[in-house]
Structure formats: structure tokens, C-alpha cells
């Protein structure tokens, strides 16, 4: 007997066509993976039931790795080979990393991105993050017993182009198909369903273990605009632990935190953290401090804890008010405040926010999970699992992009807060007679002087025909894609001669570099590199065939008989190649051939889609 299929509301009807799409919060202290299951976003736990993966990777003697809690547990014994908080080094040079002298690593100051010398060689934040992302990818694949179709990965709103590019490189290295990079505060807002709610201003208060971020979002007509951001990259829950630990040691008449042995200090801090967490629910807890092999028992109440940490909370409020001032808005103008990060569980913090804004903050979702949950909802929509047309996120560029001009000044090409994707061209000219080359220096930032902005890339346009000064017309084109990633090209148009170059920012890895890193061994991935890349090429081919077939089913009538049979032939060839070829290269070129062969079809389909959309709107308007 045939059974009728009943699909869940808001889901694609055929469960076999559901694609596994995950949201990943790649955090400074910890990371999470979430997915929409049975219509609800939830974080995926590991086999021991833990959703949170500490962002820590330890490189071992035998070329192996420990990732997560295990790495964190051994950090004390093997600090220089255990990389924590790698996010702080993403797309950064050594000079960019404040306070690197105090960190236990052997830093390698290399161009592009700082490296850390471990017993397994020099590692960048991209490689460390790739280990964490791969661990989460495997967790998702184990959960669903299926390949992950794609992932939405979150980044801080203030991340510049280099940091976003580095994040995407890490995902590629981990074998993840990045559906989109989205801003963390935007993800938190999506988790709370604010994109479906009232238009207006929203604040996202994100107090994590070691960082504090505040973002002001404006939601208008389906666009989430990051209005202003602020924060302190060295303020978080750890500081609250330290305050409480110091106060307790003092009250017990013991040595100060600095005088303790590293082992004692770790234990006291862990105990202080436990007490802090317990005080979110209880009014009073007892603690036991172990110093000089002796246990000292004492009680602490919430009022005492809040008193010793009051200035930390006050600092976050000061930074928050500065962001409001930057945006020229008052606290009353803010429609709602979203709380993110485990430290926002502290009643003292919640109370301070409620007092400032005159309304209680949004706290009903788990603050550790809220960013990953929002990313999962977006991933589910992008993968086509949600009902079409209900969520469209139109993001904006966080910082202005420009070029260096004469005198070290910045000529802005794309203004901050432009809706992406976007592209803009600007024409420049030569300033010397007979000039045949021009240096193009791409910068990001809001300042007038190049020296005060971040340098993203430099390249030269050569082969300009000699002309008098000012006669050449060099068109520089900036393009920012939907992930906020930039590419720049330059072209000489003044004469018939044209030269063009497309650059990636200097922090971005070339495909060869990524391939090299993959080859260099990547413990969590399959050991056999060829098998792995063959499998990935096959998955990609499958994806491509499915997409082409569904496009043909929907809009095949747009094609003439000849065009149709040409595309059919390419699909047949790709399917055969994917099955028979023993190496990825052949599959990749068959994929490319199909992509090229369907270019015209894609354009025709888009035309129909746009026309239908406008026509639908017209009907509604009548």
C-alpha cells in the first residue's frame, strides 16, 4: 500500500531532497554548529552531549591533533603547541595583534598573516580554524549520516575584508561549501525572528568569555544595516572570574592571584567561574579555595560579586553609549536589545541593560547558542529547504573601500553601508608624460589618509601605451560579492589597448596555497588526499547535475531544440566522467564545461524570473 507523504510546514516536500545545511559560529573562545531539524534550529552536540567546542587545537608529537576540550585541558602543560583564540590572528600580521608579547607562542612574522611555530610546523589562524571547522563538519555529518551540503559561517560585524577572506579560506580548507558569511549580530537577530518583526533599531550586546562586542542594527524593508559597532577585544567573562577570585583570596587573607603558582591560580579561577555561574541562579554559594595544599571554605553572595565586578559592567555600558552616540541615537530609540554570549546570563548585566534602555533585554534563547541558531536558519533558507521567498537578507559593507591617490590620500570608491553585492568603477589617469605603468593600492577604512586605513592589496597595471600626462583613461572596478568579499580590476581604456588584472586581497590564499595546505596534512580529514578530493569533485558534480536538471524541468521551454540537446550532452558527459574518472581534474573540467554551456540558459532564466517578479507585483498593485 502506498503511503501518503505529509511534509512538515515550511519544509521542502520531498525529504530525500532536503539538503543538510548548517550554521557555524566560529568563536574566539568556543564554536558551535547548528542545523534546522523538524522545522526548529538546534545546536548539534558531540557524542558526549556537549554542544560547545572550545576553539583550541593542540599539535601533538606524532603529527596528530587534539581539538576542543581535550586540547584545552592540556593547555597548561603544552602552551606553545596549543593554539587558543586563533580568531584574534585571522587575517592579521604580527604588528596587528595587540599584546602578542604576553602570549606563550613562538610567533613567525610573515607577510600576509602571522604564523605560530608549533612542533608540527608553522600554523596560521586559517589552518587552526580549519581544524575546528572540520571537527564541526564531521559532527554534523555523523548526526545526519549524510554529507553537509553547505554552511553559513558567522563573522563579527567589524571584520574587514582580510579577516572575512581568511575565514572563507579556513572553511574551504575544512572541505565546507560556504553558502554565505554573515555578521554575528545579524545572525542573533535572525534567531530571534527580528527580520519578521517590527522595523526599527536593535542593539546586540555580545559579552563572551574574552571579548565584548556591541552592534547597532537597523532593520528597514528587509535590509539589516549595521549602523555602528564598538566594543573591547580584551573584556569578557574571564575578567569577571578574575575579579571574584581576587576578592575571595583577599577576604580569606590569602596570597594575591599573582602570587599563586600557575596550578593554584588555574584552580582558584575555575572555582571562581563556577561560583559566578551558580550566582546567576542562587543568591549565595560556598566556594573552596585550595592554596598551599590547604582548602579554605567561604561563602559569597550575589551582592558581593556584583560589587566587585560593577566597574566591568559599567565599562560595557560606557562603550554601548559611545556606539549610540556614534549613530546619533538615544537609548529610547532602540526597539529591542538582543543578548549574546554566556556572560549575559549574569543578572547584574541584564539589570544594567534593562535600566539603560527602559525595557528588559531579549534573553529567552540560550545566549551561547543564539548566533549559531541564526546562522542555521539562514543556511536552511539558502539551501532551499525553507519555503521560498520568506527570508532575504540584504547586508551592507561594514567599511568603505578606496584607492590611494596622490599625496597618500584615499579616494573612496565604495562607501560603507552600501548594500551588497555591489560594484563601482572609477576612472583615473596618468600624471607623468609617457607613463606606462600605474600602481593600484587598495585600502579599507573611513579615514582620509592612506596611512590610517588598512592596506588590502597592491598591484600594478602595466603596458599602458605612452601618452601625455592625463590622456590615459584607467578604469578601476571594485566589486563586493554577497559575502562582503572584494575583488578589484583595472583596465586602460584611453587607447585601443586594454590590460586587466583581478586581485584578491593580500591576505587571501591562492587556490594553489590552499591545495598546498591540504597536501601538508590535515589530521582530521581523510588520510588519503586523492580519495578526498575525488569525493569532493564527485559531490560537486552531483550538485551541478541536480541543479541543472531542476533548472531544465522548470524553464526548459526557454531553450531551442539544439540548445537543449547541447546541455543534455554536457550533463551526460559529466555524469559519465564523475562515475568513471579516477582523478578529480577530469571531473572538474567537465563541471566547468557544463557551467560554460549553461551560461546563456542562466541569463534567460534570470530574465524570466525578474519579469515574473515585476509582473506579480504589478498584479498586486492593481
Amino acid at each position, binding site marked *: 500500500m502506498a503511503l501518503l507523504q505529509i511534509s512538515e510546514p515550511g519544509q521542502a516536500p520531498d525529504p530525500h531532497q532536503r539538503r543538510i545545511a548548517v550554521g557555524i559560529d566560529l568563536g574566539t573562545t568556543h564554536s558551535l554548529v547548528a542545523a534546522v531539524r523538524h522545522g526548529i534550529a538546534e545546536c548539534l552536540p558531540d557524542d558526549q552531549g556537549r554542544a560547545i567546542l572550545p576553539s583550541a587545537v593542540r599539535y601533538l608529537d606524532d603529527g596528530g591533533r587534539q581539538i576542543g576540550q581535550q586540547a584545552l585541558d592540556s593547555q597548561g602543560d603544552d602552551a606553545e603547541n596549543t593554539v587558543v583564540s586563533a580568531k584574534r590572528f585571522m587575517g592579521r600580521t604580527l604588528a596587528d595583534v595587540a599584546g602578542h608579547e604576553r602570549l606563550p607562542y613562538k610567533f613567525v612574522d610573515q607577510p600576509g598573516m602571522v604564523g605560530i611555530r608549533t612542533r608540527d610546523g608553522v600554523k596560521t589562524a586559517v589552518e587552526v580554524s580549519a581544524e575546528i571547522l572540520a571537527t564541526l563538519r564531521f559532527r554534523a555529518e555523523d548526526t545526519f549520516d549524510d554529507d553537509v551540503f*553547505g554552511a553559513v559561517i558567522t563573522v563579527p560585524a567589524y571584520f574587514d575584508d582580510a579577516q572575512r577572506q581568511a575565514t572563507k579560506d579556513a572553511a574551504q580548507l575544512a572541505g565546507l561549501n560556504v553558502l554565505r558569511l554573515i555578521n554575528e549580530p545579524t545572525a542573533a537577530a535572525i534567531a530571534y525572528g527580528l527580520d519578521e518583526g517590527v522595523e526599527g533599531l536593535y542593539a546586540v550586546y555580545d559579552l563572551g568569555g574574552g571579548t565584548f562586542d556591541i552592534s547597532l542594527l537597523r532593520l528597514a524593508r528587509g535590509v539589516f544595516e549595521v549602523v555602528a559597532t564598538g566594543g573591547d577585544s580584551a573584556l569578557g567573562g574571564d575578567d569577571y572570574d578574575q575579579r571574584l577570585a581576587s576578592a575571595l583570596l583577599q577576604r580569606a587573607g590569602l596570597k594575591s592571584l599573582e602570587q599563586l603558582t600557575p596550578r593554584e591560580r588555574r584552580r582558584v579561577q575555575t572555582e571562581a567561574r563556577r561560583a559566578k555561574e551558580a550566582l546567576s541562579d542562587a543568591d549565595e554559594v560556598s566556594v573552596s579555595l585550595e592554596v598551599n595544599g590547604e582548602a579554605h571554605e567561604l561563602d559569597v553572595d550575589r551582592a558581593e560579586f556584583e560589587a566587585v565586578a560593577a566597574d566591568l559592567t559599567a565599562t560595557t555600558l560606557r562603550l554601548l553609549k559611545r556606539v549610540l552616540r556614534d549613530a546619533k541615537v538615544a537609548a529610547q530609540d532602540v526597539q529591542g536589545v538582543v543578548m549574546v554570549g554566556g556572560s549575559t546570563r549574569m543578572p547584574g548585566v541584564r539589570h544594567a541593560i534593562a535600566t539603560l534602555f527602559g525595557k528588559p533585554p531579549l534573553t529567552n534563547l540560550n545566549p551561547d547558542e543564539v548566533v549559531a541558531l541564526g546562522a542555521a536558519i539562514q543556511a536552511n533558507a539558502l539551501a532551499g529547504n525553507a519555503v521560498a521567498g520568506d527570508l532575504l537578507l540584504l547586508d551592507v559593507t561594514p567599511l568603505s573601500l578606496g584607492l590611494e591617490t596622490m599625496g597618500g590620500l584615499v579616494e573612496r570608491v565604495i562607501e560603507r553601508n552600501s548594500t551588497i553585492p555591489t560594484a563601482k568603477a572609477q576612472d583615473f589617469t596618468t600624471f607623468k608624460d609617457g607613463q606606462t605603468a600605474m600602481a593600484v593600492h587598495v585600502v579599507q577604512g573611513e579615514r582620509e589618509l592612506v596611512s590610517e586605513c588598512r592596506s588590502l592589496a597592491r598591484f600594478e597595471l602595466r603596458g599602458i601605451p605612452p601618452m601625455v600626462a592625463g590622456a590615459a583613461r584607467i578604469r578601476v572596478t571594485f566589486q563586493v560579492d554577497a559575502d562582503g568579499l572584494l575583488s578589484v580590476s583595472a583596465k586602460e581604456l584611453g587607447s585601443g589597448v586594454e590590460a586587466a588584472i583581478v586581485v584578491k586581497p593580500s591576505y587571501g590564499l591562492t587556490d594553489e596555497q590552499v591545495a598546498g595546505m591540504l597536501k601538508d596534512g590535515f589530521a582530521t580529514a581523510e588520510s588519503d588526499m586523492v580519495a578526498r578530493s575525488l569525493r569532493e569533485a564527485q559531490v560537486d558534480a552531483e550538485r551541478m547535475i541536480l541543479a541543472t536538471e531542476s533548472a531544465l524541468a522548470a524553464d526548459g521551454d526557454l531553450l531551442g531544440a539544439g540548445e537543449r540537446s547541447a546541455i543534455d550532452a554536457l550533463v551526460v558527459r559529466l555524469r559519465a566522467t564523475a562515475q568513471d574518472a579516477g582523478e578529480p581534474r577530469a571531473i572538474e573540467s567537465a563541471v566547468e564545461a557544463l557551467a560554460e554551456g549553461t551560461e546563456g540558459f542562466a541569463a534567460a532564466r534570470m530574465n524570466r524570473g525578474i519579469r515574473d517578479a515585476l*509582473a506579480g507585483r504589478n498584479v498586486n498593485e492593481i
Partner: protein
Amino acid sequence: MTLDIRPTPLEGASTAPRNAEAPLSLQATDFALFGLPERFALDAAQLDAKWKTLQGAAHPDRFATETAAAQRVAMQWAIRINEAYRRLKDPLARAAYLCTLHGADIEAESNTAMPTAFLMQQMEWRDALSEAGTLEAVDALSGEVVASRNATLKSLRGQIDDAASVDWRAVAGTVRGLMFVDRFMSDIDRRIDALSLQ
């Protein structure tokens, strides 16, 4: 990939679809792309609604599961739609674009010839700004400039939409004047910032 993101050339205007049957292309005028009449007056709510509709059909997020070719096409269209939206939304950019469509380039860089009365007014304002020592005085000047700007924008509507035959060179002159005024407005804003920090 090369993207055609130049301001739509005049040829584009003459070949652009004037009716719904012709295929839409990336070279269509901003107005044709948004299905809006080619004139200066514009309903902001309708423009926003059309923008959302178009992005709903073209945004790369809608093609995340599709072929690379479809994603490339989606990005080109989403960029083109955002470009047109930005230009249509801003009255000054919209007026300048209409001039370009009708063969009267603004030539903002090269053509700085302005009527004497306009230049006199500018000098008066600049003097007033350099003499204004208090926030109140700058605010008053700012109000005056904004009122004058709004009046000029309103007159553009008469010059373009209500005229039996449009003198596009005259319109381009008005647009150039407004560009001067906008530059002056940003000087005023900087002065207000400086004074409020004191």
C-alpha cells in the same frame, strides 16, 4: 569576470524596452529595470517595493543551490539592481541620470560655469559660514540652505515633468548648482561637528 557597470549609455536608452514584452537586459535603463515611468517625480514607497521584489528574484541568496553560471548571472543582476536603486533613490542622482539619458551630460568636473546670481549667493553663504561662531548661527544658516535646496529640487520637477518640451541643458545647469550646494552642506555639517565637540 567583467561586469558592465558603467552608467547606462544613451544608446541603451533608445534601445531600452518601453513595453513589458521586450527582454530585460543589464543594459536597460534604471527606469525600465524598475518598471517605473521615466520622469523625475517618484514614489519612494513604490521604488522600495520594486527593489525588494527585484532582489527577491535576482539576489545570489536565491541561487545558493544552483550552478556556478546561475550564481554569476545572479550577482551581475543584483549589482545592477542595487546600482539603479541607489541612483533612483537620490533625487539629485536621478535628475543627473535623466540628463545623461537625454544627451545633456552634467560634466561636473569640467563645466564650472554658473550664473552670476548663483555664484553671488554661494559667496554670501560661504561668508556667513565663516562668520558664524555659534551652533545656533550655523543651524540657522543650515536651515536657509536646506530650504533653498528643497525649493530648487521642486523646481526641477517643473522643469522636467511638467514642461511641454524639456530644456535638458538648463536642467543639467540646475543639477550642477545643486551639486555645489551639497558640497557646501557637507562643509556646514563639518562645522556643526566641530562646534558641538567644543
